[in-house]
């Protein structure tokens, strides 16, 4: 370890990802250090290392960590726009559309307001990737799922519940054994590359695109307000760019990995839900949109943005 000048600013950056993104994190740390001539340094913490991901907003506000990098659906109980910004079923179908909704149609402005109310500042976005169903047995339609026990959380669990598909709550580290032994029949947890990372293909190899939401989750970076104010303009720019680089790096890594696995077609048998089912899912999701809209005036505005966009794209009639 080398000695560090006393005026070096060190920031605690806490992600919700595990070690799988370490090389991207290293690039992020290196580029920030280099761009600032060593006067700005990132201390990087993996998911769960200091605080649980669902406590990021509070932890950033109190300064336990300086920057939190997570997904809004971890904390809708605290910031009620969380589920909407993480992605409601049927809200968007590709990255460009999602990016447009956030950056040009005003969803980011609403989210920024909501976070400011909680005393933290929104400073970055990451666009996730595929988020679909992995099962032990092939799935041809939604009805096949009714006799299966699926591990799912959040909005996806809610939609499945609408179709009387039983969902189970289990910690992520038990997924492998639970799938191998048949405690559960399937999971909705991520995309092909994430399932490969968890070695879940050894236990269940039927990957079914649900065509419900893509990217299946959107990432949120928030920073402590005082930390932000105390940074020089130059440091602010470097940090923003660094986080954007980290977010893009993750997105590319996921997309490339997923694409590779889909093309190779070796680990998983890929299939899609029939169009009719995808439609039923989207329809069922409307009641969830409504529930979210009812939670606050701001949420209602946010859901209006989603509705306007869906109408414009022709997925929803007026």
């Amino acid at each position: 370890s080398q000695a560090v000048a006393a005026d070096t600013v060190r920031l605690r950056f806490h992600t919700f990802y595990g070690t799988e993104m370490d090389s991207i994190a290293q690039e992020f740390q290196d580029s920030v250090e280099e761009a600032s001539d060593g006067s700005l340094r990132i201390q990087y913490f993996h998911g769960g290392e200091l605080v649980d991901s669902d406590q990021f907003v509070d932890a950033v506000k109190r300064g336990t960590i300086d920057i939190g990098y997570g997904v809004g659906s971890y904390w809708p109980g605290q910031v009620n726009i969380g589920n909407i910004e993480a992605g409601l079923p049927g809200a968007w179908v590709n990255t460009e559309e999602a990016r447009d909704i956030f950056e040009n149609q005003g969803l980011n402005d609403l989210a920024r307001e909501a976070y400011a109310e909680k005393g933290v500042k929104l400073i970055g976005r990451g666009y996730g990737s595929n988020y679909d169903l992995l099962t032990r047995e092939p799935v041809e339609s939604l009805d096949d799922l009714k006799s299966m026990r699926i591990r799912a959380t959040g909005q996806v669990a809610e939609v499945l519940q609408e179709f009387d598909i039983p969902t189970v709550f289990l910690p992520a580290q038990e997924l492998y054994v639970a799938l191998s032994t048949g405690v559960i029949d399937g999971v909705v947890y991520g995309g092909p590359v994430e399932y490969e990372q968890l070695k879940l293909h050894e236990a269940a190899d039927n990957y079914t695109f649900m065509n419900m939401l893509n990217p299946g989750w959107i990432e949120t970076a928030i920073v402590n307000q005082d930390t932000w104010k105390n940074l020089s303009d130059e440091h602010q720019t470097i940090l923003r760019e660094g986080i954007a680089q980290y977010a893009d790096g993750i997105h590319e890594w996921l997309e490339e990995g997923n694409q590779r696995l889909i093309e190779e077609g070796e680990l998983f048998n890929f299939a899609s839900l029939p169009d009719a089912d995808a439609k039923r899912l989207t329809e069922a999701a409307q009641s969830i949109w409504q529930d979210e809209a009812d939670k606050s005036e701001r949420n209602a505005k946010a859901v209006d943005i989603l509705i306007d966009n869906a109408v414009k794209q022709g997925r929803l009639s007026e």
Partner: protein
Amino acid sequence: MSRVNRYLRVQDGLSDWVGKTISWLTLGMIGILLFEVVARYFLNAPTIWGNELTTMFFGALSILSGSYTLRHHGHVRSDVVYGLLPPRGRAFCDLVVFGLGLVVLVIFFKLAIEFAYTSWRMGEFSNQSVWRPPLYPIKSTIAIAVGLLILQSLAELLRAVLRLFGVAYDDPRDDAIDDPA
């Protein structure tokens, strides 16, 4: 002196009462999980609340048992060095340890009150399962548990002071868990 003895007895009684009350959570956890297993495996109808409710029972049991365990000297300590000290030396060590411990617990208490208060105010709920239970009850148990632990620590601190100054007191610490063996 009798007042001191009475205080110690009342404080120990409080911790015992808490311990006895929360010990029922163990049976509750067994019951819910067995129900969940039957519902899921035999009826293919898992509950949406079973595992999360059990986790809450577990959380409450874990944190609230702190004062009961302290009252029964159940917190593990190493007596490799401590055991070699004369009684007064041990009393002095206890005084330092429980004194510093109280400082930590008071800070912990203050944070836990804020934690619970924030959760109550925003009506925080969980997003782990579709059950979506409110989180403020379980978050509030931390403040209650730390408060109870502070009270029992005060009793331990008082005992250390009395032993340090060689004041006799009757310690009503007959181990209340009677062993049927």
